[in-house]
C-alpha cells in the first residue's frame, strides 16, 4: 500500500489562483471575470499582473455568464470566478443557453463548494452543483482534490475547447499530489490498488478515502482507492475494471447523493456491471453553520463514514 505524505495543508482555491496566474503568463487568450469575490477566489495576482484581461463584474452573476459567453467570440478563453452556489443554481439558465447549448469555451470556476465553506451556513453551502452541471449536455465537470491538482486542472482546462465546470473549496486540506502532475481530463487516478472494495472519491473526500484505506488495512481489508477528479466525462473504463475485480464499491463526495459522483457511478454500474454500492454523501439535506470538521462529521462525510461504508458494502457482496 502506498503511503501518501504532505508537508502542508493548502486550500484548493489557492491552487486555482496560482494556476490562473500561470495561464495569464502563458496564454494571452485567457481572460478572467469575477463577481465581487476577488480575494475569496484568489484572483488578486492575475488581476494585478494582467489588469487589461481582468473584468470586475460586481454582484451580477447572470451578466457575468453572458459576458463570458460573448467574450469567446473573437477567441478569448474566459474564466469566471465566484462561489459555487452563485456559479450554478443562480445562473443555471444563463449557463444552459448562452454557454452549454451555444458550445462556448467558458471555464466556470467555482469556489467554496460544499459544507466546508463552514460558518456561513446553508445559503452558501451548495451541495447540488455537480448534479446541475453534469446534467448539461457539452459540460465537463471537474472536482480536484488538493492544491496541486487544482492548479494542474486550471491549467489543463485552458487547452480543452468547450465549457468546463471546475469545482474547488475554501478549507486547507492536505496537499499530497505531485506538483508536476499532468492533469488529464476524464482520467481517474489510481491511488492504492486493492482487491476487497473499490473506493471512488472526489474533491476533499479523496484524502479521507486514503485515510480510510489505511484504517481498513488495519482490519485486514484491502481497499482500492481511486481519485475521480473528473465526474463528467466519467472514467467508465477505470471504474468497471476496478469493480470487476473488487465486486463492490463505495463513493465519497462532498455533495448530495442525488446528482453527485455516487449517482453517476450507480448509473454506470446499473447499466454495465451491477454491484453493491454505498454512497458517502449528504442525504437529501441542507447544511448549517459550523466549522468544516464539525459539519463533515455531522453530515456523515468523515474518514470513519467511509470505513463503515466499505465494511457494509463488503458484507453485501
Amino acid at each position, binding site marked *: 500500500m502506498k503511503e501518501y505524505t504532505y508537508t502542508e495543508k493548502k486550500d484548493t482555491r489557492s491552487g486555482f489562483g496560482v494556476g490562473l496566474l500561470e495561464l495569464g503568463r502563458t496564454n494571452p487568450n485567457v*481572460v478572467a471575470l469575477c463577481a465581487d469575490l476577488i480575494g475569496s477566489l484568489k484572483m488578486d495576482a492575475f488581476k494585478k499582473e494582467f489588469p*487589461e*484581461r481582468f*473584468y470586475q*463584474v*460586481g454582484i*451580477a452573476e*447572470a*451578466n*457575468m*455568464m*453572458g*459576458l*463570458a*459567453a*460573448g*467574450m*469567446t*467570440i*473573437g*477567441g*478569448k478563453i*474566459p474564466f469566471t470566478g465566484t462561489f459555487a452556489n452563485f456559479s450554478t443554481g443562480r445562473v443555471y*439558465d*444563463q449557463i*444552459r*443557453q*448562452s454557454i452549454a*447549448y*451555444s*458550445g*462556448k469555451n467558458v471555464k466556470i470556476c467555482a469556489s467554496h463548494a460544499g459544507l466546508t465553506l463552514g460558518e456561513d451556513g446553508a445559503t452558501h453551502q451548495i451541495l447540488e452543483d455537480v448534479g446541475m452541471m453534469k446534467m448539461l449536455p457539452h459540460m465537463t465537470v471537474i472536482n480536484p482534490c488538493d492544491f496541486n491538482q487544482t492548479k494542474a486542472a486550471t491549467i489543463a482546462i485552458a487547452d480543452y475547447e468547450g465549457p468546463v465546470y471546475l469545482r474547488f473549496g475554501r478549507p486547507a486540506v492536505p496537499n499530497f499530489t505531485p506538483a508536476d502532475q499532468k492533469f488529464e481530463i476524464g482520467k481517474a487516478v489510481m491511488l492504492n490498488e486493492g482487491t476487497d472494495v473499490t473506493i471512488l472519491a472526489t474533491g476533499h473526500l479523496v484524502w479521507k478515502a486514503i485515510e480510510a484505506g489505511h484504517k481498513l488495512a488495519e482490519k485486514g481489508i484491502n481497499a482500492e482507492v481511486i481519485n475521480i477528479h473528473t465526474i463528467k466525462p466519467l472514467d467508465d473504463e477505470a471504474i468497471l475494471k476496478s469493480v470487476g475485480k473488487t465486486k463492490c464499491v463505495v463513493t465519497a463526495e462532498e455533495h448530495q447523493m442525488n446528482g453527485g459522483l455516487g449517482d453517476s457511478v450507480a448509473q454506470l454500474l446499473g447499466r454495465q456491471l451491477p454491484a453493491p454500492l454505498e454512497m458517502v454523501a449528504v442525504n437529501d439535506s441542507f447544511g448549517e453553520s459550523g466549522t468544516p470538521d464539525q459539519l463533515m462529521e455531522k453530515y456523515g462525510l468523515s474518514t470513519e463514514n467511509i470505513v463503515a461504508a466499505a465494511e457494509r458494502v463488503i458484507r453485501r457482496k
Partner: protein
Amino acid sequence: MNPHNKSIDELKQIAAQVRRDIVRMVHAVNSGHPGGSLGCTDYFVSLYFKVLNYKAKPFNMDAEGEDLFFLSNGHISPVWYSVLARAGFFEVSELATFRKINSRLQGHPATEEGLPGIRVASGSLGQGLSVAVGAAQTKKLNKDNNLVYVLMGDGELGEGQVWEAAMYAAHNKVDNLIATVDRNYQQIDGGTEEVLALGDLRTKFEAFGWHVLEADGNNFETLLPALEDAKKATGNGKPVMILMNTEMGFGVDFMMGSHKWHGVAPNDEQLEIALQQLAVEAASDY
C-alpha cells in the same frame, strides 16, 4: 465590406420579400412569432443590406474584422432567418425547413446545428445584451474597431439581467456597442405598460449612463439616418441605445397593433390576404 449597399427602394422590395417569407414560414408549421418579426423587418434589412460590415461566406464565428449582430429576443427568428438567407449566409430554400425536425432553423436561434450567421443561442430572454457586451470587450482587446449590435424586445426588459448588463456596459465604457430595443409596446399577455410598465426608457437608460437615440423602425427614410447617428455616437465613452418604435405585425393590416399575433400563425385564408398585401415587383418566394 458590406456586399449589399442598397438604395431605399431596393430595401423596401427586400423588406416586402422578407415579410412574405415570414408569414409563409410560420404558416407552414402553424407556429412561430410573426408579429415581432414583421415589426423588426425594416431594422434587419437595414442592418444586413446597408449598415453592417460582414462576410456571409465563409461564415466566421470569431468575426474578426467584422461587425457583430446578436438577437436577444430570439423568438423573432423568422425575420433573422429570412434576412440571413437573403443576404447569402445559406440557401433561401432552407427557409422551408423552419421549425421542422432535423432543421438548422430551430424555433429559436441556435448554434448547435451550425447555421451560419448565428453565434449564440437565444430565446430565454434577457441574455443577449450581456453576450453582446462581452463580445464588444473582446473586440476592444483584439483592437478590432468594428461594432457590435444587439436587438432586444421591450417586454424583455423585465429581466433583471438586462439592467445588470446596462450598468456594466456604462461603467466599463463599452462604446463600441449599439443596442436597440424594439419598442412595440406589446408582450404576450398584453401591452407592456399594463403587464409591467417600462415607463420612460430614455430617462432610464440615460440614468444608467447610456447615449440614447430614438428611431422609427418602420420607415427607412428615418431609420437609416438614425442608424448612422448611432454609429457616429460610438467611440465616445458610452454605450449607445436606440429606442426603436415599431408596430407589431407591420405590413399586414390585420396583424398590426395587437399583441394577439405575437405567437400565432395565420391560417390559409389569412396567409393569402397577407401575401396580397405584401406584393413585390419580382417575388422570389422559396
